[in-house]
């Protein structure tokens, strides 16, 4: 048992990323606040990155995983920028970023 716990293997990192992923998903699902959702998204992206780096370190042996992680980070940045711009836009339009209020696109 301690062998499993002590020598850090791939599974440990996957577990950590899983937990972060689940928390991120939870945050996305339950937040009423637009920015809260963006936070959740960031968490999800980070968990994905952990997996990338873990696999790159343990399994692949080359730099693909890390390169991908960097791309993910870069895209996360772009996404955050746009997301926040939209949130600002919503805020200026609806004077609130509570997604409950922002339902004018209702079917």
């Amino acid at each position, binding site marked *: 048992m301690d062998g499993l716990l002590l020598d850090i293997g791939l599974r440990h990192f996957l577990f950590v990323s899983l937990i972060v992923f689940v928390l991120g*998903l939870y945050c*996305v*699902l*339950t*937040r*009423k606040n*637009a920015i809260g*959702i963006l936070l959740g998204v960031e968490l999800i992206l980070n968990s994905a990155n952990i997996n990338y780096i873990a696999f790159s370190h343990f399994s692949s042996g080359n730099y693909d995983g890390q390169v991908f992680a960097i791309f993910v980070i870069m895209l996360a940045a772009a996404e955050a920028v746009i997301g926040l711009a939209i949130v600002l836009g919503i805020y200026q339009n609806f004077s609130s970023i509570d*997604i*409950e209020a*922002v*339902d*004018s*696109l*209702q*079917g």
Partner: protein
Amino acid sequence: MDHPLLVSYLRWIVLFPLLGAVINGVFGAKIQERFGKNGISVVACTAVGLAFIFALRAFFQLTSLVPEERYLLDTLLRWIHIGALQVDIAFAVDPLSGLMILIVTGIGGLIHLYSIGYMHDDEAYWRFFAYLNLFTAAMLTLVLADNLVLMFVGWEGVGLCSYGLIGFWYKEQANTTAGNKAFIVNRIGDAGFTLGIFIIFWSLFEAGHGTTAVFRDLGHLIHHLEGQMVWGVPAATLAALCLFVGATGKSAQIPLYVWLPDAMAGPTPVSALIHAATMVTAGVYMMARMHFLFSLSPVALGVVATVGALTALVAATIGLAQFDIKKVLAYSTVSQLGYMVLGVGVGAYGAAVFHLMTHAFFKACLFLGSGSVIHAMGDEQDMRKMGGLREKMPLTFWTFLISTIAIAGIPPLAGFFSKDEILWLTFSGGHPFLWLIGFVAAGMTAFYMFRQVFMVFFGENRADEHTKEHLHESPPVMTYPLIVLAVGALFAGFLGVPPALGGSNILEHWLEPVFAGGHAAHHHVEVIEYVLMVASVGIAAVGIFLAYLIYYRRSLSTETFTAVGGGVPYQAVFNKYYVDEFYHATAVRGTLLVSWLCSAFDRNVIDFIVNGVAKVTGLVGWAVGRFDHYIIDGLVNGLADVTFGIGNRLRQIQTGNLSIYLYVIVGAIAVSQFLPRVGADILLPVVMVFLSLVIVVGIALWLSTRRIQWRLMFTKEGVSELR
């Protein structure tokens, strides 16, 4: 004969009258306004006069040549040069055409002078002279044509002018119908003529020895036609017959003579010129010109001869019963033409041409005489209203009398020599039966001519008072041509005195080079010739005596003749053997019937088909429309409605609330990704099912808490209200 002397003045013979026609035709109205009617007549007469002078010049130039060399040629311009057909516009004068142009221009000129007086008070004066000039030009083209095609042009031109002149007073319906009738009948004949030309051309082409339309060359090449068969008939015979059909049309022989009597509706000088002297002789001239073709097929000659004789007889009989002064002369022309055709038929081309010449003189004189009578009688043409005009119109009477004697065939005058020549040649040519017909016809001719003289000039005047006072002799411009023609009638005969009577038959010799192929040289005199001569004079005398008895002495009443055979023959003769009616019944009605049939057919069958197709299309269209409307539109609309319904139902989940969307996404992923992946063991599927249940319940539960009422979401009116 085949080394033509090239000259360049022949063209003017044709061009002068043509020029005159153009001037009068185009500027006629203006000239008449400006210079009055004399301007018109000056132009017309000078045109014909110049043509006559040039014709004389050509004639004398011919006489200066050696008989074999008598051939003047004037090529104007290249006309049709297509493949094997080489046709030029070229005018040629040889003894035959030389004679003809003299007749045309001479007698034409006299008639121009005469019509100055006759048409004096007619408003369309310029149009009349334009037509006359045009006619003269066309006739000269026909006569001077060097080849068949150019002759055909002249042939048609003449037909056109006759139509124009017959229907000159176009205001009356009768004149126009007469004009039409003449034109149509001529056209039938012309059709035959063209067929003849084509047959000659193609058969020569088939024979492969090159083709030409020039009479001179045709003469040499025509023997190649012997072996040719066209439609199972020897080419030569067929061509000849077709040409003969054209001739009958133009020269008013048996089948196609009906237009000539009606043509009298035109002014009298027209009748005189066209329907006595020139146009009607065109057929005889054509056959004379094509003598080498006809001599190739004895069958054709036989047909020609019989048709000629029959025409002579039939026309004569009809002439007996006519009361219209011009109708009598018309039928006498037809019968005289019959003699000419008979002459051609028996191969006596020379005699035929001789008779043609003499007939031109006295027939023209007769017509012009009747013209002056009608002129005097105030356009009255019925002989029963005339009589005793001898004192009032001595000149007209004497010229009329001379011409009548000439036509009757009394010796010293022209008629006897030419008619007798034909009869003798018919008899000696081995056609005794035809001679008999001719012989009888001659008698009848004498009878009806003198009947006319006695009715018109002797006895008491049956005209009404009004016309009586006005009776006067025609003005000199009309009477002088009559005198010239009468002199012509007197002396024309001496040109062709037969050797039997000590004459040297100048005309025969004159035409001899042209008909080199002919077989007319019977120099040895036979007794039988004298016998026939005496017989013909006798029959003439009998005819004259009968006429004298009936019409001058009134001792013999006409009933004796009319009652013969129950009056049927008289009725038949009086009504012209009902030929018009027959034609009307058969040809005209036939054509009408055929046209009606065609229109009926067209109306019913074709229209029916077309309308049918239209109806069917309409029907099909309607069917397709219905199909499209109900089935396809139905489908489409149905689909639209279905989609709309589904869309409406699914609209509910678009609550506009972001987290709901995320739930749906995550739920969907969870269900779709994990459900199939999980292994087959029992525990996990249970969890899966439980999970999806929970999801659905959760969403439903959650939705219920939302402020959207149930009513809005699921009931119909709610949805409509929402929308």
